[in-house]
């Protein structure tokens, strides 16, 4: 256990050369994005590819995408915690980190999309509860604050551990360890209380995940627009969110495993389980996609059919079919058999799913906007370099935050791993015994 603890704390002790290179590159991308954003603010949204009738472009796509990624934390950490899945232990920390670090970019995506970002505070000064956008703002804020607290509670024992292990840590980091470890000593009483709190928080987070995803989908679902106006959007968004989120967690876990040499901590069996989770979510998403498209096709209302044909056979057909291939056709068979659920394949499948799900968000967002009910000419939308730069910068900064995090805290929850080794076996045994008939 001590050896593992040392291994988990090693990245904090010093940065490798690869780490410095990665940080430099990502920081450059982020700076470029910042330049693009300043350019956009001074010139107006005219520098984007958005126009009329495609009024919402990839900023909104990114918004949905980052909210989706953020949902994985709640699923892997909260749901697996509630269902007492013991294999969750190496993932909880990084799942929560993904949630906490991706949500700010969801908010920033909206911010980048506003024509008047300087008036953002109007949402607080003159809120109008009728608008689904306001529900969005409230839901995302609430989710962010809740998951931040959840994240922090899970961190406390490890902050205390770091405080003990790195007494010489100076500057911001030392201050952080001392300030945020509070009075944690690690008594059984404290651990018990911590588990009670995280348990309660897990229930709250699961409720929030359903609410946040649904509200985000309602920005579109409650509109009149054919292609958006469908009741399936809530469940569809939740499933898609979890699907892309678990894929991101798989990628982060694989990266951490490789760069920090955590092969004995995050084992193939963990990836195997994540693979099963991905497979299930992928199949549900596929089912919902089929349900939606078949319903539209047989209902055959002209306005809805126009959107469907734009997606399946019109100007968006290449994107639609690459989404189908990237999300379902290649990854699902790969995830289906135990033999092919290797770590390497899981990484390949996850990369495909992340890209495919981003495209899926695009397919949801853009085609319905290109068609107007009145006989206007068909709309077009091509994102410009400004939009791509800001998108890349968001992804880069998100990764930077994760990287920076590994330099301050262990990316795998040390206390939860320890608990898994010391207390969990007895607890599991007791639980299994309780299921048995009395005779």
């Amino acid at each position, binding site marked *: 256990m001590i050896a593992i603890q040392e291994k988990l704390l090693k990245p904090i002790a010093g940065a490798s050369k690869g780490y410095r290179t990665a940080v430099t590159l990502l920081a450059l991308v982020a700076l470029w994005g910042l330049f693009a954003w300043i350019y956009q603010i001074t010139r*107006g949204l005219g520098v984007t590819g958005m126009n009329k009738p495609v009024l919402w472009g990839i900023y909104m796509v990114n918004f949905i995408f980052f909210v989706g990624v953020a949902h994985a934390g709640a699923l892997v950490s909260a749901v697996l915690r509630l269902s007492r899945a013991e294999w969750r232990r190496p993932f909880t920390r990084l799942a929560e980190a993904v949630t906490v670090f991706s949500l700010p970019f969801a908010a920033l995506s909206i911010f980048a999309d506003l024509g*008047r970002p300087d008036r953002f505070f109007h949402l607080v000064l003159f809120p109008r509860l009728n608008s689904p956008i306001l529900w969005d703002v409230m839901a995302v804020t609430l989710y962010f604050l809740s998951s931040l607290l959840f994240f922090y509670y899970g961190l406390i024992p490890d902050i205390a551990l770091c405080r003990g292990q790195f007494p010489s840590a100076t500057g911001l980091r030392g201050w952080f360890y001392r300030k945020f470890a509070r009075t944690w000593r690690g008594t059984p009483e404290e651990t018990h209380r911590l588990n009670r709190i995280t348990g309660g928080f897990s229930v709250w987070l699961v409720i929030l995940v359903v609410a946040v995803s649904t509200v985000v989908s309602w920005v579109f679902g409650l509109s009149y627009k054919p292609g958006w106006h469908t009741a399936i959007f809530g469940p569809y968004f939740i499933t898609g969110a979890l699907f892309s989120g678990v894929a991101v967690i798989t990628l982060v876990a694989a990266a951490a495993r490789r760069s920090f040499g955590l092969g004995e901590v995050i084992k193939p069996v963990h990836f195997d389980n994540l693979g099963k989770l991905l497979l299930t979510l992928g199949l549900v998403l596929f089912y919902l996609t089929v349900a939606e498209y078949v319903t539209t096709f047989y209902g055959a209302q002209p306005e809805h059919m126009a959107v469907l044909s734009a997606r399946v056979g019109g100007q968006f057909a290449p994107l639609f079919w690459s989404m189908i291939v990237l999300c379902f056709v290649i990854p699902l068979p790969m995830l289906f058999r135990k033999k092919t659920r290797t770590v390497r394949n899981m990484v390949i499948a996850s990369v495909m799913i992340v890209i495919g799900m981003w495209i899926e968000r695009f397919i949801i967002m853009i085609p319905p906007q290109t068609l107007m009910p009145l006989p206007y000419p068909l709309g077009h939308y091509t994102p410009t370099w400004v939009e791509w730069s800001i998108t890349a910068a968001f992804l880069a900064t998100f990764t930077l935050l994760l990287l920076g995090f590994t330099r301050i805290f262990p990316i795998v929850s040390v206390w939860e791993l320890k608990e898994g080794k010391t207390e969990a076996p007895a607890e599991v045994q007791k639980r299994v015994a309780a299921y048995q008939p009395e005779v």
Partner: protein
Amino acid sequence: MTHFPAGRPSSRDGLPEGSEEIMKTDEKIPKELTRAQFLKLGGAGLAAIAAGGLAQRALAKENPGQKATRRQWAMVIDLTRCIGCEACTVACQQENNTPPAPHADVGRMRAWNQVIFKEEGETPFAKIKYHPRPCFHCEHPSCVKVCPVGATYRDEKRGIVLVDYARCIGCRYCAANCPYGARYFNWSKPEWSKNRGNASNPGVPMRPKGVIEKCTFCIQRIRAAEERAAREGREIRDGEVVPACNQTCMGRARFFGDLNDPNSQVSKLIRSGRAYRLAEHYGNEPNVYYLAEVRP
């Protein structure tokens, strides 16, 4: 480069001096309206604010200054007379200072009054049908419903839908949710040709970049008529308010008036049996009516 008429130095956002003020003080959404809507939503926990709002509303009702005739301004467009010349579009752009789209960018064009062309029938019997489309100033506007800050609202006194340029945050949800495509976004600072000189209309504020704009039924002309009538101590006469598009229409196809007055010209016209509205299945209840084309 932005050009404004001489003698009016541009301030923040490239607006002429004072237009922020005009926008702030004028046509501001009454506070009690949003509060009443809170109530409608059953916003629990806001009872205290709501009560305050109701009190304010009651006070406002007793205030004689607020007691004005409620009008429902509406437009009727006779398609038998429309020749699709698009003069209404040009007149509207002149009147309301809508700048041309930069670089002939069709997707960024601003035409508060746009003529929609639709081909009907098959060759050789095909025919183009015109639908001049201002904002429809709907009874149940789907744009107002989704605005997160109440920047777009229905002026119940006049029965028209307006935008508070000083409050709009530019999220464009209203435009995405308008089935008629009547809303336009300021993608960049307004740009004018240098030759334009002093040709802008001083009675209409320029819109800054990043906000939504749309047809106002020429609110400046409605207001002028209201002031004139108040000064002379009378009601506004039928036909006294003429929006720019109506004024310029060479086929005299457009009519404007108060639907709350059963004897107004528009009221009579919509009872004619030829009247219909566009895409009624969205339930927006537009206040712009078309008179079906009668072919000779």
